[in-house]
C-alpha cells in the first residue's frame, strides 16, 4: 500500500479524535464532492462552476424520499448517485458543446436555473427555508443518529470513493481525459470523441457530487437552499484549487483546509474568509498545484539541502 493511502487511513482514524464528529464527517463529504470536481477540473481541464447543481438536486430528491417515505439509507444513496449522474448528463450535454469561458458561464447559468427552481418550488424544497426534517434511518441495527456511527459510515464511503476515483484516473479513460486536457484537438485527431468523453467525465463527477449531497443532507438533517447555490459551487472549486487540482489527493487536502479553517478560525476571528483569500492568492501565484505541490516542493528542497550538506562534508 502506498504512503499516500497510509496517510489517508491515518487521517480517517485520527480526525474524529481531534475534531467533532459532525465536522470530521463534513470534511470527508466535501472531499467526495471535491473528487468529483477534480475529475473535471484537474484531469479533464474543465472548470465547472455548477457542481452544486448535482449536489443539491441529489440532496433534495433523496432528502424528500427519506423524509416522506423513510426509504432505506442505501436506496437513498443509490438514488442520490443516480440523480447526480442524470442531472450532470443533462447539464453536461449542453455545456460540452462549448469550451473555455462559454463553458464556464453555461455551468454557472444552469446552476442558477436549478437554484431558482429550488427557490421557487417551496412546496417541495421549502424554498429559502430549506428542506428540514431529514432522518438517518437505522440500517442493519446500526443507529446512524450516533455521530460516530455516521462518521464511520461516511469515512468508509469516502475511502470507497477515493479508491474508485483512483481506478478511474489510472484507467485508459483517465489517461484519455488527461490527453483531452493537454490538447483536445490532438486527442480528437487520434480518434477520441472529445465531447462524448467530456460528457462522461461530467456524469462521473455528477455521481460523486450526488453521493456527497445525500450524505450532507443526512448529516445535518436539512437540505439548505445554499446547497444548490453558486457559492457552494465556488467553495468546492476553491477548496480543490487550494488543495491542488492536478493531484488525486488535492481535493482531500483542500477540503480539510477549507472546512477546518471555516470551523476553527471563524470562532476566533469573524473575518476569516480574508485568510482564505490570502491563501488563494498565494496558491495562484506561487503554487499552482496547491498544497500538494507546496508539500512536494518543500520535500525536494529539503532533499537538495541534505544532499548539499552531505556533499560539502
Amino acid at each position: 500500500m502506498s504512503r499516500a493511502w497510509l496517510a489517508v487511513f491515518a487521517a480517517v482514524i485520527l480526525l474524529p479524535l481531534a475534531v467533532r464528529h459532525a465536522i470530521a464527517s463534513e470534511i470527508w463529504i466535501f472531499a467526495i464532492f471535491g473528487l468529483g470536481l477534480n475529475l473535471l477540473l484537474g484531469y479533464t481541464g474543465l472548470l465547472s462552476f455548477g457542481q452544486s447543481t448535482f449536489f443539491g438536486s441529489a440532496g433534495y430528491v433523496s432528502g424528500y424520499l427519506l423524509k416522506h417515505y423513510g426509504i432505506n439509507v442505501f436506496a437513498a444513496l443509490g438514488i442520490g448517485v443516480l440523480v447526480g449522474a442524470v442531472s450532470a448528463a443533462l447539464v453536461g450535454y449542453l455545456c460540452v458543446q462549448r469550451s473555455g469561458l462559454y463553458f464556464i458561464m453555461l455551468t454557472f447559468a444552469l446552476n442558477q436555473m436549478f437554484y431558482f427552481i429550488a427557490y421557487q418550488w417551496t412546496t417541495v424544497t421549502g424554498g429559502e427555508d430549506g428542506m428540514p426534517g431529514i432522518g438517518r434511518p437505522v440500517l442493519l441495527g446500526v443507529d446512524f443518529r450516533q455521530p460516530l456511527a455516521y462518521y464511520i459510515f461516511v469515512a468508509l464511503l469516502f475511502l470507497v470513493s477515493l479508491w474508485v476515483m483512483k481506478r478511474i484516473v489510472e484507467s485508459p479513460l483517465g489517461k484519455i481525459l488527461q490527453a483531452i486536457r493537454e490538447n483536445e484537438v490532438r486527442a480528437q485527431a487520434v480518434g477520441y470523441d472529445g465531447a462524448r468523453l467530456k460528457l462522461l467525465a461530467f456524469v462521473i463527477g455528477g455521481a460523486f457530487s450526488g453521493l456527497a449531497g445525500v450524505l450532507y443532507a443526512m448529516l445535518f438533517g436539512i437540505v439548505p437552499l445554499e446547497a444548490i447555490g453558486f457559492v457552494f459551487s465556488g467553495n468546492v472549486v476553491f477548496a480543490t484549487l487550494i488543495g491542488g487540482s492536478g493531484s488525486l489527493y488535492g481535493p482531500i487536502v483542500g477540503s480539510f483546509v477549507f472546512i477546518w479553517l471555516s470551523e476553527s478560525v471563524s470562532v476566533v476571528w469573524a473575518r476569516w474568509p480574508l485568510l482564505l483569500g490570502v491563501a488563494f492568492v498565494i496558491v495562484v501565484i506561487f503554487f499552482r498545484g496547491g498544497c500538494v505541490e507546496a508539500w512536494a516542493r518543500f520535500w525536494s528542497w529539503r532533499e537538495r539541502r541534505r544532499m548539499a550538506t552531505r556533499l560539502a562534508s
Partner: protein
Amino acid sequence: MRELTRRDVLKLGAVGAVGTTGGLGFPAVVRGQAKEVVMLGIWPFTGAFADVGPILDRGMKMALEERGMKILGKPIKYVTRDSATQAGASTRRVEEAVDGEGAKFVIGPWSSGVALAVSEVAKRKKVLHYFSGGTEDISGARCHRYSFQWAASPYTAAKTDVDTFMKANPKAKRWHLLVADYAFGWSVEKYIKEVGKTHGIEFVGADRHPLGEREFSNYVTKAAGNKPDVVAMVNFGLDAVTAAREIFNFGLTPKIPLIMAWSSGVEELVQLSPENRENIWVGSNFYYTAETSVAREFARDYQAKFGNPPGYAPAAAYGMTRMLLHGFDRAKSTEVPDVIKALEGIEVNDLVGRMRVDAKTHQTLRPFFFMRCKPKAAMKNPMDFADIIATGDTPLPAAYAACKDIGSF
C-alpha cells in the same frame, strides 16, 4: 515528488495530531462550567448579511453588559458563532456551540430561512431559541416549545400599516403592491389585502420581484401605468432601498406616497437621500425615538458608544436578550425548561412598550411602529429621519394562527 520514508510519514502524523488536538483544535469535549450560563449569539459575520452581524452582536452585548454579565448571581458567558447566512453552516455551528461550549440559550440569526434551521437544532438539542424576523413559521406552522419570535406578527404589521395610513389618507384607495417573492413577502401581502378589504381598498396591481433584485425599472413603469394612489412595498434591506430610489427617479414619489410595509428603519432610511425619503411611510419593528424609557436609554447609550442611533438590528438583538433575561428573573432559575415556562405568558414594559409572550404560540405580542419620513427642512439632524405617527399591536386573529399545538419539552 520524492518518495516518503516511513519515518517521514510518522513525523507528519505526529505533527498533524499535535497541531489539531492542541491549540488549533476544536473544543471537542470542553463543556461550560455548571455555574456559568452560556449564551450563544448566532450572527451573520460573513456572507450575504455580513454588515449586520457586528451590529447585532453589539445589541446583545449591551443588554448583557447592563446586567454586569451576570444573571441570578451566575456569570454569563457570551459566545458568538458566524451564521454565514447559510442554514448548513449555522446548524453545524449551533450544534457545536451547544455540545462544545455548553450553550443553552441561543439568540439569532438574521435571516428567516436560516432561523428555521436553527430552530430545528434548538428543538433537537433542547435549548432555548429567540429569533426576530419576518418568518411566520417560528410562531406558526413550525412552532415548538423551544423557539420564540420577537418581531411582530406580519398581521400586526399589515394591520398597523394599513389602518394608520388610511386614517391619514382616507381617499387613497387604489394601491399597487411590490412584494419580495418569498414566504415573508407573501404573508405580509396576504394580510395587507385582508386588512385592505375593511377599508375598501382596490389593489390595482401586485408585482413580485425576486430576492436580491437590483433593476426595478420595469416594475416601476408597470406601477405607474396602474395609476395608483399609493405604492406599498413588502421587501427588505437593499431590495427596498433600490426600489425606493427607482420609484423616486421615475417621479412617482413624492407625488404619490410610498409605504415600506416592513422596514428595518434606520438601516434603510440612511441609504436614501432626504429628497428620496419625502412622502415615504415606514412600518418597522423598532424606531429609536420610541417613547419608552428603555428605548430612550438604549438609543442614548448606543449613540454615545457608536456615534449613530440604533436601527432595528441592534434593537432586536438587545430586545430579545432583555426578554430572555426577564425570563430568568421570573423563573429564578437558569434551567432551560424553567426559563421557557417563565417566558410563556410573561408581561413586561420593555424596549418597544408593553410586551407579552403568547404561551400558546411563543409569539411576542408587542407594538409595531408606523412612521412618516420628515421633509429635509424639518430634520433636526442628519439622522432625524421620521416621526412615529402610530403604533399598533393587534395580534394575529385565531383564525389565521397556524400554531395549533406548541408541544411539550
